[in-house]
């Protein structure tokens, strides 16, 4: 029976029609598997081979990969959201309402963007926890851990700047509360200890963040540009560095 099936398979794959469609078969060799990685622009980030324990979900929790996936989802949905959103005090809130009620799948788009962003914050924290528990920050990966810490901050900042954009009460007050602490920065904040007399609420570090003394239209524009352009660019550069160093430092950590 098996023999017969094999014969049939060969008969089909050797037929003129089959061979006119598929130029060659798929070799089952290590060379083939290696080339599959090396010759693919999306996959060449990977090494051709990894140690077996790197495949183990219980070891990696997949959290680094999930963080990257969440970043990609927010990038794609974010670009689509930008088509419908104007970062001005007059339009921002209405554009979000319009998106929710009138744009086909607008609500779903916004939900995916928001939940992927929240998911990214969770997964990046769990990723850090895993990397610590497995001691993966130890030599030679010290610097990549530092890059990771900065990426954690960048993730928080991306999420925080995005929080303001719907321009509703939730957004407005969360950002007001979140940026209020900057008033108390030592030396650089007007309510902080050791602040020089010329530091006032219209030139301190909080003013630089908000582009005003309270959260206002210029804050919205500032956060919009940080959220959509500046911080994603920074995150991309740091992620490239982070992934590159994972490989240069000997791939995913293991007992050495």
């Amino acid at each position, binding site marked *: 029976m098996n023999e017969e099936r094999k014969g049939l398979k060969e008969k089909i794959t050797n037929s003129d029609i089959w061979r006119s469609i598929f130029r060659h078969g798929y070799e089952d060799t290590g060379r083939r598997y290696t080339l599959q990685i090396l010759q693919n622009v999306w996959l060449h980030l990977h090494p051709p081979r990894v140690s077996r324990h790197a495949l183990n979900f219980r070891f990696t929790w997949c959290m680094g*990969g999930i963080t990257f996936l969440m970043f990609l989802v927010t990038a794609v949905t974010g670009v689509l959201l930008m088509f419908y959103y104007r970062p001005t005090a007059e339009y921002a809130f209405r554009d979000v*309402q319009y998106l929710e009620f009138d744009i086909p799948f607008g609500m779903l788009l916004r939900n995916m963007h928001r939940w992927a962003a929240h*998911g990214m914050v969770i997964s990046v924290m769990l990723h850090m*926890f895993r990397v610590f528990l497995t001691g993966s920050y130890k030599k030679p990966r010290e610097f990549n851990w530092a890059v990771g810490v900065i990426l954690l901050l960048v993730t928080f900042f991306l999420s*925080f700047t995005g929080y303001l954009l719907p321009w509703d009460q939730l957004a407005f007050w*969360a950002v007001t509360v979140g940026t209020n*602490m900057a008033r108390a920065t*030592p030396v650089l904040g007007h309510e902080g200890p050791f602040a020089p007399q010329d530091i006032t609420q219209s030139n301190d570090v909080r003013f630089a963040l908000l582009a005003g003394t309270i959260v206002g239209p210029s804050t919205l524009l500032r956060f919009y540009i940080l959220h959509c352009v500046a911080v994603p660019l920074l995150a991309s550069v740091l992620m490239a560095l982070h992934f590159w160093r994972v490989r240069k430092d000997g791939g995913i950590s293991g007992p050495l």
Partner: protein
Amino acid sequence: MEHFLALVTKPDNVPILAILFLIPYFMWLSYRQARQTDITGVPSDAALNDKVYVWPYLCRNEFICAIIVMLVLGVWSIMIDAPLEEPSDPTKTPNPSKAPWYFLALQEMLVYFDPWIAGVVLPGLIIAGLIAIPYIDINPKGKGYYTIKERPFALAVFSFGFIVLWIVLMIVGTFLRGPGWNFFAPWEYWDPHLVVPLTNVNLSYLFGIRSETTANFFGFVVVAGYFSVGPIFYLWKRNSSRFLQELGLVRYVVVSFLFLTMMALPIKMILRIFFNVKYIWVSPWFNI
């Protein structure tokens, strides 16, 4: 209680609910593997050199993982709508006003420390401390596998900081802090007119010190004494401890400073909650 259920099921609090399950699950998962390593020994070099092709084995895993995550995200996005409240109004302050959920541990710290410490100095030290970890942890063991026996101190400190001082405070800040940032148990009604007597006094007052200058000096002595626990311990143990000699003075100073700073938060929490202590050190320029 109804009100608490409404709070828990708020769309933006879903991530915290997820964390409530994810953190215990991953702690259990890592604990099990650590215990196994501690019993059976560290995986050998042979296990490490056992290599597999990324295509198809790793790519397959990544693909399956991505599909599952996208499914979860898709269902989540279809089932639960992102919140949109009324248009922003600078003249209408909600009570309580909360930062986004991932900053609530920081906002919670504001109860115990002045904004310049809770909002600026401590977050800065958290970041600096995290970056410093690989440079101050000179224990070469426990790299690339789960273990408890080989690095108990590092694990205890980090887990305490991450689980208790970050995750738990975040959950408290989200679910148990109501109007006026007062503490409310889940079954309590969030009364915006709740009157809470402000009976907190400074530590110096508890010790019967009334003069401002003496109180300033007293506070300085307490804080300086607290941070000199580290150096004194070093001088005391330096000759007998191999570990301290290997660690070196500079690394030791950084470790003890970061550790004592971290522990200052739970200490201040206990002092505030059980002894109604407001400040430990009141000076003309700043209060701690």
